[in-house]
């Protein structure tokens, strides 16, 4: 323990430096100014950064990803990955207030594709693309050490429990749905759902709505026993990283050379991402025949589920479109016209004072709803397709003789490497 103290003392020192301005700060009561129109800056949104600093952030991200890849694959250093994730937490989380992040950048990209009037910044685009490219070659190194949300959860893993794989697979479907809905809402200009329900940004900014803070603390407390709950059950960017990572040529491996099947690593992963060797019994002819039948059934079912999902998605356009403030406002004023007299309803009062006519609002809302009708097809189809493919994968037993990390689910944190007794 005493060897560890200096290391963690460094962390505390770093945090103290960050907070030193608060310690030295005096409580000053600013004079109220009635004449100059001073507006107190909002604490919930970060100040815009200079362009040079934004490019610097991209550079830092690139460095972190590169270093994480080297640490995970070449150096095989769990300690290095840990310190790098602490740096990312401090830099991308607390210093940059958690914005812009690669997870939220999904929405920027979606909006820029579907809204010709929206120009995505190059930094947002790079924040979106770079981790995916690294995942394509080196696995989910972004999750290992660059993502501040992952880092904060990773650091408070105390006593993780292992859950059955069928629970993992079922919960693992939720991020797919979340991804679809987020993209649809962003593409229609309705809302940036991922940002709105980011549980940790309130902690990074030391400020936020009560619900946001409550969610963040709940996730952290949960994360002590169920490792990285947000990453495994909600993160929509993780879906994309998972797809990319499955094709990675150079991925973190448990053993530096050959697996001796000592099983020491089997329970080392707090995320249950280690795949055990597939016993021959699962590849026996009678099992294979049954799985083949199921496989063919799912192959046929995939287009059915896709079309069914798309149909349901388009039917859902009415309630989905209500997320858009214009649609919500128009329907509210149609269904409850007496609210026009309610002075406490700020949305309606702001609209009435805006000078726009109600018919204009209705026209805008109709256009938006039509976008949701079309987008619903894609959302539902995507969910149906993902469901079909996930089902299909359940009847495929790939040949595997060693203990390997699941390329899609492994966060490349490196914990398992320390359990392997094999030397390079």
């Amino acid at each position, binding site marked *: 323990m005493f060897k560890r103290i200096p290391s963690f003392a460094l962390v505390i020192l770093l945090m103290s430096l960050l907070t030193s301005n608060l310690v030295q700060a005096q409580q000053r009561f600013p004079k109220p100014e009635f004449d100059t129109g001073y507006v107190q800056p909002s604490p919930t949104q970060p100040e815009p950064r200079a362009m040079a600093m934004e490019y610097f952030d991209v550079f830092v991200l690139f460095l972190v990803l590169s270093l994480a890849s080297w640490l995970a694959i070449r150096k095989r250093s769990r300690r290095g990955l840990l310190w790098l994730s602490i740096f990312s937490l401090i830099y991308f989380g607390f210093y940059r207030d958690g914005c812009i992040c690669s997870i939220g950048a999904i929405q920027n990209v979606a909006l820029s594709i579907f809204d010709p009037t929206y120009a995505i910044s190059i930094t947002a685009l790079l924040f979106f693309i770079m981790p995916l490219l690294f995942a394509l070659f080196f696995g989910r190194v972004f999750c290992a050490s660059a993502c501040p949300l992952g880092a904060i959860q990773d650091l408070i893993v105390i006593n993780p429990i292992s859950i059955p794989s069928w629970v993992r697979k079922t919960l693992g479907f939720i991020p797919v749905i979340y991804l679809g809905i987020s993209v649809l809402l962003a593409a229609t200009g309705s809302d940036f759902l991922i940002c709105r329900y980011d549980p940790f940004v309130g902690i990074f900014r030391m400020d936020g709505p009560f619900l946001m803070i409550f969610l963040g603390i709940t996730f952290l407390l949960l994360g002590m026993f169920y490792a990285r709950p947000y990453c495994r059950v909600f993160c929509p960017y993780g879906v994309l990283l998972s797809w990319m990572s499955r094709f990675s040529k150079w991925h973190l491996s448990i053993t530096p050379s050959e697996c001796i099947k000592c099983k020491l690593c089997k329970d080392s992963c707090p995320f249950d991402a280690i795949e055990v060797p597939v016993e021959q019994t*699962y590849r026996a002819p009678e099992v294979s025949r049954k799985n083949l039948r199921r496989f063919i059934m799912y192959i046929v079912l995939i287009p059915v589920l896709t079309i069914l999902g798309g149909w349901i998605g388009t039917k859902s356009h009415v309630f989905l479109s209500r997320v858009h403030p214009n649609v919500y406002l128009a329907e509210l004023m*149609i269904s409850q016209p007496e609210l*026009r007299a309610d002075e406490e309803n700020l949305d309606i009062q702001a609209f009435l004072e805006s000078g726009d006519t109600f018919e204009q609002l209705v026209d805008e809302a109709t256009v938006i709803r039509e976008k949701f009708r079309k987008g619903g097809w894609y959302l539902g189809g995507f969910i149906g397709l993902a469901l079909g493919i996930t089902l299909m994968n359940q009847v495929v037993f790939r040949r595997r003789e060693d203990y390997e990390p699941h390329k899609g689910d492994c966060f490349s944190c490196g914990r398992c490497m320390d359990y392997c007794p094999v030397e390079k």
Partner: protein
Amino acid sequence: MQSIKDASIKDASIKDASIKYKDEEYMDRENNIKIAHRVALISGMFCGIVALLLILNFWHMKQHEPLESATIEALVERLSNEPNSDVLKEEIRSFDLLARKAYFTSRWQIKTGTYLLLIGGIVLAISLKIYTDLRAKIERPEDVTEELLKARANAQYWLFLTGGLVLGLSLIAAYVSNDYLKSYQAMGGVEEAAPEQSMVEVIEVFPANQVAPTAGDSVAQDISNEELVAEASDEQNEPVVEATAQQPAAVLSSGFSSEDLKKNHATFRGYMGLGVSYHKNIPENWNGSTGENIKWKVAFSKHGYNSPVIWGDKLFISGADAQTRIVACYNRNTGQLLWEKEVTDIPGSPAAAPRVTDDTGLAAPTMAVDGKRVYAIFGTGDVVAFDLNGNKVWGRNLGVPNNHYGHSSSLQVWENKVVVQYDTNSGGRMLALQTSSGETIWDVNRPVNISWASPALIEVNGKIQIVTTSDPYVSAHDLDTGAEIWKVEAMMGEVAPSIAYGDGLVFATNEYARLIAVEPKPGAEYTWEDDEYLAEVASPVAYNGNLFVATSYGVLVCYDTKTGEKQWEKEFNDGFYSSPMIADGKLYIIDVGGITHILKADNTGAIVAEPELGEGGYALPVFADGVVYIRGTEHLYCIGK
């Protein structure tokens, strides 16, 4: 022997040293576990306490938001009544300073607490991690692993279930969601009833060209005497005139002259709806509480802000609540109730009344009477006609008005037409209905927003124009065809005051807009305008070269009609929702407290008397020779000697 013994002694000492070292290591480890455990406990408690304090602070701030202090609000409201009070201003400033101090102190507390919680959390996480690491034991890997086939089968089952649940719930939500936008557009902008709002049932508007001359589903007729039958059959043979008709149909006079109309109080604000009464010997003193000069008073059974109308010896009044609408007739000399009829069996009438605000109600519009029939309209869109003996002649529903306060435009009647100004949130509209049958003579859409004002009539070059005021236009329509004659853009917001007319000028006003005078002709520009005192509800009245405007905050102002020059202004304790009326050379106006302020209707504004009713007053006074009728919030009074 010695070397073996030495070797064994050496082995033993090494073994002892090894054991001792292991014991020391074990003790160190145990101590470290204890330390880590205690640090975790203390930091955990620290975090808990800080979190609790933060939550308490948050809850306290929610309950007593310093920036939304009720005290400051009350003081600011008082300041609006006493704008020159320095004491009040100082008080507001000091309370504001305290509120800001409290706010920024709270922000500091939250920030400090958050940092403390963060540091405590880090210490807790580190100590817990160390504790669990030190206590962790190397375990033998288990031979038993999860049964893969079973796990995969379970996964397929639960994936099917989850996917099915998500898609199924989405489908259900899709079918139970009401597409208000689609319904709104399908109805052409008329609101459709939402299923969860069972109180509202919007009826499709009665189109002009589908009215059959004989009674169909939409119109009920109940002719009670031969005269009415003969007249009705003659009128039914008249062609129905639509807004776009090329030739207006010939109409018959109601049979009464303008002198007859002046002798009675037939519509809202009297003759032609302009606020000037032609009656004499109007009382100036009374007291509703003591009974002084109160000839009679009755408690009317249903609530309504409409004013009574009079024809001959009969006084008509209406009232409504969510369940019933009634029209009543009193002997205006004795106060005896002659008849009271519930308005029912109106084809298309909604099953449940629409939601309206309490300060409007469902019976805000004043009735109209033309000597043969009395006409009433309610907030449900029901329009009904009774003969003067209480027999229902016809009734129809114009569609539940899309009106967030409640419909309040009163009816206007002239010759054989009942004119309905029906400007709602669904658009501007005006109709003229046959007095005998309720059939639509013309029905025009107008490019205006919702309005609560009532139509008035003016005579220009021998022709009657119907003049209305809405947002944004003050406009006039031809009485025979409904065609627009002129309009001027003047108003904005929620228009409630009706127009005034005098000296060849139309006057219109609304709060947050302006007060204008304009000639009633196409292309006219404002003759003058002002924005110092604007009425919110009460309609202005013009008389003898003076225009009188009453505001809802209790100011009464007199302007010269031709120049707009302010002649006088007077401020009273209570505001005015009732419109001023001119009678006998005097201006009568009732404030919300029930005091009638009687002033000389000239450029002196001398106060003649201020009798009290003893209860609130929102309806305007109605005159007949020697008497005045006032509908208070609880009673209907007849005042006279």
